[in-house]
């Protein structure tokens, strides 16, 4: 079965979404990620969506769920690299992603995660 790879970088997990996700793949990622957070005790998750040329309500909901889920598991989620056209579209669609932290790119996301984890 097709899967989105999850990379470990120290205390953090990095997910780079490079394919146009169908719904089942998005659900699998959600399960895989919670599994990896619990196995690795990761403190943070970076989701790189810079390759996604659209985010609809389904993918948006998945991002929100992952973020909420990781918070319950004592990890922070940062979504990085959202394309401007995608951001504009999301707002108009009405999807505000409450509680989801975003950063411009992986580096900034990483330092944001470090700050947040250290200040805890």
């Amino acid at each position, binding site marked *: 079965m097709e899967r989105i790879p999850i990379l470990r970088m120290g205390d953090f997990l990095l997910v780079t979404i490079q394919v*146009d*996700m*169908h*719904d*089942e793949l998005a659900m699998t990622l959600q399960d895989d990620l919670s599994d990896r957070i619990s196995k690795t005790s990761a403190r943070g998750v970076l989701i790189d969506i810079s390759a996604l*040329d*659209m*985010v*609809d*309500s*389904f993918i*948006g*909901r998945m991002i929100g769920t992952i973020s909420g889920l990781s918070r319950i598991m004592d990890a922070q989620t940062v979504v990085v690299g959202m*394309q*401007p*056209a*995608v951001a*504009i*579209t999301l707002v*108009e*669609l*009405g*999807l505000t992603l409450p509680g989801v932290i975003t950063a411009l790119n992986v580096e900034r996301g990483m330092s944001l995660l470090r700050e947040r984890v250290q200040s805890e």
Partner: protein
Amino acid sequence: MNVLRSGTQAVRIEQDVVLARQTARKLAVEAGLRLVDQTKLVTAASELARNTVVYGRGGDMDWEILEEERRKGLRLTFRDQGPGIADMKLAMTDGWTSGGGLGLGLTGAKRLVDDFSVESAPGQGTRVMICKWT
């Protein structure tokens, strides 16, 4: 108004939702829509294609590249012969869902395009038309 090119694509299973938005992207580029408008149309198409699969029990997407005097456009029509929408007012309310969704698909799609129309009757299926112009 001229129809420059048109076609139909099946929207039956979940994977067809991905194919529908890929087709929508390709055609939006061909119609000359700017990037933000392409993205809005593709996102609306994704929402409607998913509704066609999930609620409409599958259907088709018709596409047309349109030309008027000063502009071009892409029109997509999603049609199915599923159960139809019993209460259109409710379905067109932000946040209302009969399933486990966010209830943003129809209302969000409407906000993202220039023209929007929906026709549906219980037992007779659903037809949603969206169009974006250059």
